[in-house]
């Protein structure tokens, strides 16, 4: 997979120096090639009911990775760390060469909006807004992605059309009027608009039947490869793995601590 984007040089130096200081590095890729890089991460939810440790987890730029884990295995926690919603108690989370721990809360929000497109399991959309408006919302918070769209509306329509939605479906009426599959496509368009470097998808196909899952996945990955984005998809279904460059089991990279009921 080729890296099509320019790296931010200062952030690279930062993460490079940090990498050289930490642990053994045999087949470690250069820091500039990493989209996601977690090292020695420890995180505890408040009240200590649930904790997660990740020694090392990396996603290369342009790579598509399927992360397999059962529910309760810490998927959501890991994603919220990568997205910078939560900050680890120890260790570093680097996304596109930027150490999220160095950013303030509001800068992390901005960084997430600019860097990561996110698709959830279901109920992805603001039900009262049109599909088109849903696609446009991230641009409001992501100046870098907005700059990449000369005409945001046209780009949104292009993306939804590429994902098999008509203009009538997305431009008029609330998103709640769309079928679940159509809503997921709108969510994909929203994650892709303005070409953020990374796409994170949390069980995006679980609400779809098996046949629809396949077609949906093909459509998404096709768009992602065209845009040259890195993909991290989380699923409990290892069968989806053949479409990805790499499959990682969550239990291989993360240790979960739960006090009582998790």
């Amino acid at each position, binding site marked *: 997979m080729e890296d099509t984007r320019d790296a931010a040089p200062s952030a690279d130096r930062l993460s490079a120096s940090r990498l050289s200081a930490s642990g053994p590095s045999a087949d470690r890729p250069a820091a500039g090639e990493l989209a996601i890089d977690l090292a020695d991460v420890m995180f505890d939810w408040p009240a200590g009911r649930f904790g997660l440790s990740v020694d090392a987890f990396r996603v290369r730029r342009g790579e598509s990775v399927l992360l397999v884990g059962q529910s309760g295995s810490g998927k959501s926690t890991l994603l*919220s760390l990568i997205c910078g919603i939560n900050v680890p108690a120890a260790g570093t989370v680097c996304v596109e060469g930027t150490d999220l721990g160095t950013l303030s809360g509001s800068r992390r929000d901005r960084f997430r909006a600019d860097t990561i497109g996110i698709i959830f399991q279901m109920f992805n959309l603001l039900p009262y807004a049109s599909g088109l408006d849903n696609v446009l*919302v991230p641009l409001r*918070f992501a100046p870098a992605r907005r700059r990449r769209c000369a005409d945001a509306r046209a780009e949104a329509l292009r993306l939804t059309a590429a994902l098999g939605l008509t203009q009538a479906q997305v431009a008029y009426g609330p998103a709640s009027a769309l079928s679940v599959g159509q809503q997921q496509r709108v969510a994909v368009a929203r994650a892709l608009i303005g070409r953020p470097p990374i796409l994170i998808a949390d069980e995006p196909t679980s609400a779809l039947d098996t046949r629809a899952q396949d077609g949906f996945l093909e459509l998404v990955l096709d768009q992602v490869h065209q845009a040259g984005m890195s993909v991290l998809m989380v699923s409990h279904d290892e069968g989806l793995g053949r479409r990805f460059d790499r499959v990682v089991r969550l239990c291989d990279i993360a240790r979960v601590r739960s006090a009582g009921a998790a």
Partner: protein
Amino acid sequence: MILLLKLAAASLRSRALTVGLTVFAVALSVALLLGVEKARTGAKASFADTISDTDLIVGARSGQVPLLLYAVFRIGNATNNITWESYQDIIGRPGIAWAVPISLGDSHRQFRVMGTTQAYFERYKYRGGRALAVADGALFDDLFDAVIGADVAAQLGYAVGDPIVVAHGIASFLDHADTPFRISGILEKTGTPVDRTVLVSLEAIEAIHVDWQSGAQRPGAPTPVEVIRQMDLTPKAITAAMLGVQSRLQIFSVQRAINDYPNEPLLAILPGVALQELWGIVGIAETALVGVSVMVVVTALLGLAAMLLAGLSARRREMAIFRAMGAGPAAIMGLLMTEAVLMALCGAVLGIAFLYGGLVVLQPILDTRFGLFIPITGIGVPEALVVLTVVAAAALVSLIPSIRAYRISLADGMTVKM
């Protein structure tokens, strides 16, 4: 920003019923507040408009409010009269342009009877210089002619030509039955105490008291009407008088001269000043009314905050979506405040629409039934101020749900633990 505004509006639309009710409550409260304000200024203006173009009112010495009350509003009684000689003396002074004597003390049913001269109909002005006008019939011409106000005619069902018997004193069972009057004219509605007055000539008041001494009819046969007509009916005393001066500069010197009148203790008042003093007494109620309507607005806004707060738990998913798309907790807080401000704005604008709609319907009714004239003016500074204040107050109370939303979105992040 426009997108967020659009989203907030769409979000509100999707909850049309709850939002509609909340907006309606705000609208009603705003209409009430502005309506009370309008009625208050209208009542104040109507009150101040009761008498105009009269420079001084003269009566026996008492206070300026009691004099105003009995001379203009026909409330209460004079403590004393002015002798005809003193009256003649005063109106003969230099600087006096015109004078209208008033004689009160008798009544017809619940309405006061006032003796005066033809000049009263020329000189009595209300609502910024409007003169009295006859709706039906003519002004009194004969000694036993009476002109009645619009309310008297309406409430007693009188028409021109009907006989009318004046009772001696007020709330009295003694009628001047031997000297009945005939209604010569009915005045147009004015919204002033004139509407509730029976007007007769000064001489008529004298005439009906020919056979009366110290409040009771003299025994024996009453003097025939023909005889009375031949008598000298110049009054011995009057209750009060309205004065006009030649130049406004002379008002105070004339007033001082009357107040210092050596032969009799008299009082001259400026009607405008006395009206203001009276309004100061009446005005306490208006302040209470405004206070109550402000509380109604506050209640409506608290309802708005409560409605947003109650909806928060159902909207955690929505907040999580916003968070995932890069919105910070502050943006979510802003979104909620935007919703509150939008609702308050809609409510306030709708309230103004209610107010004007109500005014168009009610204005003629209020004017003719209660003499309360509320002018329909354009949307001015008070309305704009109320809208601004309501919107600002809504933003303020929406801090309660907004801060709660901030906390929720910070704790939930992108995932909602339902």
